[in-house]
């Protein structure tokens, strides 16, 4: 059981002693029970920190933001490290970022939090359970989540409202950490890995397409999936014209010769190209934090695409994303025994 007091004290201590220039964690927001990202720089702010089943955000995104701010200011380092609260999946994201040299190990102080009996809540599943009743607070309690509502306390077995990815999580414990709270419950997985994916894949190709066609039609290209993803840290996205890093080195020719792989129109064909390319680019890098899926305002099951890549990588190439900082990259490496039967 994680004691919130310990997390707060660690944060307070680190900020007071200057061991961290900021602590990124979770605090209660202004919207009911939901936690939101918190950026603490003063010791006295430590009491704002919370740890509950709505702490779904993968905060490593903000390490990326921090890096971009530093780079923009022409700095390589911000001095003391940034401390960050990280669940198992979040910590793996941090590992991938370090694997890709986005920052160095010493730039970050990982305060790991183990998802012990449970994981985080899936708002959509919860909404069905609460049936319109608003909750003002959420808490862990063993294998249950406890919600405070106007109609009193509501206790729900976690597995009924947990995010799919948490049910299937293979490593809820943040292996890479400086400090960790909570027990290592690796192997507690409540559903088989890729269970949701397997259910979807059990359909025929025709049915899968019908489903995806509807999903891709819904996409409004708000790019929340990309914006919320710590791995989508590119300054310019390969597939659209939303971002375009222009530096003093950028030539007029370069500006003129941007490849328009896809059009800006939110048409199905373009949405597919975008989302599939994103899935390819996340292959071997996505740690299944589920943020893209959660952020999508029109419920495109983006996780399934990424999950498909993760499953193939695991089963065919024995690859686990975010396993170690010095590990190989999925698409920049190969094994002699990689499958080749599909090739004529």
């Amino acid at each position, binding site marked *: 059981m994680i004691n919130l007091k310990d997390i707060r004290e660690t944060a307070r201590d680190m900020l007071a002693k200057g061991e961290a220039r900021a602590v990124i964690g979770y605090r209660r927001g202004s919207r009911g029970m939901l936690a939101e990202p918190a950026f603490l720089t003063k010791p006295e702010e430590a009491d704002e920190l919370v740890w509950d089943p709505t702490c779904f955000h993968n905060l490593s995104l903000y390490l990326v933001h921090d890096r971009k701010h530093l780079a923009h200011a022409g700095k390589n380092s911000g001095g003391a490290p940034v401390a960050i609260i990280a669940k198992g999946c979040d910590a793996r994201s941090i590992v991938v970022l370090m694997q890709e040299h986005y920052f160095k190990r010493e730039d970050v102080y990982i305060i790991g939090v183990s998802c012990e009996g449970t994981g985080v809540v899936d708002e959509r599943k919860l909404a069905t359970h609460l049936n319109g009743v608003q909750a003002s607070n959420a808490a862990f309690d063993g294998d249950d989540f406890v919600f405070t509502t106007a109609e009193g306390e509501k206790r729900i077995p976690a597995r009924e409202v947990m995010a799919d990815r948490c049910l299937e999580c293979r490593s809820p414990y943040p292996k890479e950490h400086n400090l960790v709270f909570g027990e290592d419950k690796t192997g507690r997985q409540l559903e088989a890995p890729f269970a949701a994916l397997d259910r979807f894949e059990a359909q025929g190709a025709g049915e899968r397409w019908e489903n995806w*066609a509807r999903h891709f039609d819904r996409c409004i290209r708000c790019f929340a999936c990309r914006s919320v993803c710590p791995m989508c840290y590119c300054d310019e996205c390969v597939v659209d014209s939303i971002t375009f890093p222009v530096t003093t080195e950028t030539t007029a020719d370069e500006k003129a010769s941007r490849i328009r*792989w896809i059009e800006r129109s939110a048409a199905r064909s373009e949405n597919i*190209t975008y989302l599939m*390319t994103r*899935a390819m680019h996340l292959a071997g890098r996505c740690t299944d934090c589920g943020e893209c899926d959660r952020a999508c305002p029109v419920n495109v099951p983006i996780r399934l*695409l990424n999950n498909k890549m993760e499953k193939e*990588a695991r089963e065919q190439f024995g690859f686990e994303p975010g396993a170690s900082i010095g590990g190989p990259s999925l698409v920049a*490496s*190969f094994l002699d025994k*990689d499958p080749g039967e599909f090739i004529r």
Partner: protein
Amino acid sequence: MSDQQPYEPKIVAFLCKWCSSAGSDLAGVSRIQYPANATPITVPCTGAVSPMYIMSAFNKGADGVLVSGCHIGDCHYLEGNYLARRKMYLIMKLLEFIGVEQNRFRMSWVSAAEGAKFAQVITDFVGDLRPLGPQDKLKRAEIK
């Protein structure tokens, strides 16, 4: 296209310069006939084929995409085809996953000595694509 003409699948064929493009040259020198549906784009190596190319070809209206290179162990650049094998496997699985017909994407190893095989690969591919009809899943909608 008039009603009389049979449907002709459009194929983009990414051929590595050293093996498959040379193999297709050999098919030519040997005058082995095969359907004219595949337009070759010669790349240095299959390792240079970005999955984005596959997506883009389908997006621009290809009915089928072929990637062909040197046999494993024969890569002029030693490892390019190993890297390609992995990348292409992933994109193939992803296409299959969203429900694109398996036969729309194909990969083959055709060495410089395998002119007949090159012709066969194209013939088979066209044959497999015909029954599928035009690819409209990923294709950008036509201008109205």
